[in-house]
């Protein structure tokens, strides 16, 4: 029950380092989610960093299953593409929902006093 196809050492290091880099990105994103003080700042941090982190983990998984299994495995690309398409959409919808919120008003207009919007 040992490893059927032993990975070469460079592949082990490459896959492992990709996974660790992905974990670092995800951790930085959620630290931003916890530490930043405004909702719009908090929206900024995890939507980028976590997507990048998951992308790294999925690339690592693709490499791993391609190098150990039967031929090239690409179906992690489905998750990657789906995440990269949907993350901006959900962030946009969250920002629009926050502008309707009771306690998180619009950021002040840098050009001057507020004009009556809509």
């Amino acid at each position, binding site marked *: *029950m*040992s*490893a*059927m*196809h032993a*990975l070469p*050492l460079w592949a*082990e*290091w490459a*896959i*492992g*380092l990709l*996974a*660790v880099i*992905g*974990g*670092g990105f*995800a*951790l930085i*994103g*959620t*630290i931003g*989610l*916890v530490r930043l003080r405004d*909702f719009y700042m*908090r929206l900024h941090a*995890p*939507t980028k960093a*976590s*997507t990048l*982190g*998951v992308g790294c*983990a*999925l690339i*690592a*998984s693709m490499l*791993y*299953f391609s190098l*150990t*299994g039967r031929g090239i495995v690409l*179906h*992690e690309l*489905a*998750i990657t593409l*789906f*995440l990269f398409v*949907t*993350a901006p*959409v*959900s962030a946009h*919808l*969250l920002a*629009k*929902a*926050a502008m*309707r*919120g*009771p*306690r*998180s008003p619009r950021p002040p207009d840098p050009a001057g006093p507020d004009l009556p919007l809509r």
Partner: protein
Amino acid sequence: MNAAPNVPAPGGPLDLLLGIALLLFALAALLAAWRLLRGPEAVDRILALDTLYVTSLALLVLLGMRLGTELYFEVALVIAMLGFVGTVVMSKFLQTRDIVE
């Protein structure tokens, strides 16, 4: 005997690094859960839930690598789709206060 797991060699660098990556993602999930519980308003909680499902997706992918099975891939795919739909529906509800438009 085609179900023999294809695990990374125990004690090798991949085993160790995958453990570290799993730990980092788990810490990220914990921080997101903290924001989910604390978040001053509903939008923060929705954002934290979004981050939480993305992080748990990565956790499942890494766990599948570590256990040498591709079963967790389908779980990750379903989580990605349902999580996106959930985020869209909840933020639309906050915008319009109405589910059925």
